[in-house]
């Protein structure tokens, strides 16, 4: 979803359209570039959350995570999530970029950016977006151990109702 141009109101007073953006990519992520996609001159606070591959998870060493996704479904659910976050928290903009493929330790796998007039909305929305991505976006990580062992991570049970592609 690309940035939407400025819209006009019925009173001819210009209002900034929501700046929403999602992307799945095998390229390295650039947090500042993602932040610029959501912020404009009306913004008083931008929050950028960068998720990176940890060296140790639950006591087990990792050298890299390998991500894959159901691309079309993931992009549609991500778009619904950022739109819902923007509406519920009064944001100026919201964005998610998620890396696919092999992501070594210390490298970013996800960037979430939110922008609002005030910081509280931006912080709250960023946390909600990350939670929703982890809960219902069809992206999976495969843990790669130092000895080359690969393990797909499938926590819990996915109860994705059909309407969850939309708001919520």
């Amino acid at each position: 979803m690309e940035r939407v141009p400025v819209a006009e109101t019925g009173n001819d007073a210009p209002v900034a359209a929501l700046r929403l953006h999602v992307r799945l990519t095998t390229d390295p992520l650039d947090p500042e570039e993602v932040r610029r996609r959501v912020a404009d001159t009306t913004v008083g606070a931008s929050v950028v959350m960068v998720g990176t591959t940890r060296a140790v998870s639950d006591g087990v060493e990792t050298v890299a995570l390998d991500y894959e996704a159901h691309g079309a479904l993931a992009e549609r659910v991500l778009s619904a999530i950022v739109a819902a976050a923007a509406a519920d928290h009064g944001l100026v903009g919201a964005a998610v970029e998620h890396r696919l493929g092999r992501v070594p330790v210390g490298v970013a796998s996800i960037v979430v950016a939110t922008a609002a007039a005030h910081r509280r909305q931006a912080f709250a929305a960023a946390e909600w977006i990350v939670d929703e991505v982890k809960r219902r976006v069809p992206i999976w990580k495969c843990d790669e151990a130092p000895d080359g062992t690969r393990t797909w991570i499938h926590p819990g049970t996915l109860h994705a109702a059909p309407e969850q592609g939309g708001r919520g």
Partner: protein
Amino acid sequence: MDRSIQPAEPLAAAAATEDVPPGTVVVELFAGMAELVGCRRVSLAWGGGDVAALRGALARACPAAAPLLERSAVAIGDRYAAEDQTVDVGHVVAVIPPVSGG
């Protein structure tokens, strides 16, 4: 990666094309589910039914995948599907195991 588990008889590896053979549905598999079945797309002979019926047919065809299948959602096209949603011949269905993005 364990590739020793092969699809059972009713499953056949589907060609990497959007063409769906007559009388079948194509099922896309991801992550640990693809690893269990041993391929990323399978075609399944299909006489009609809903998502729950398709789930049962998949479990019978590939018992090794049944436990993860029980914990998975199903999508038709780019939308999550309800258990009572009809799956038509020609549909492309995806099994969505529990997610772990972020």
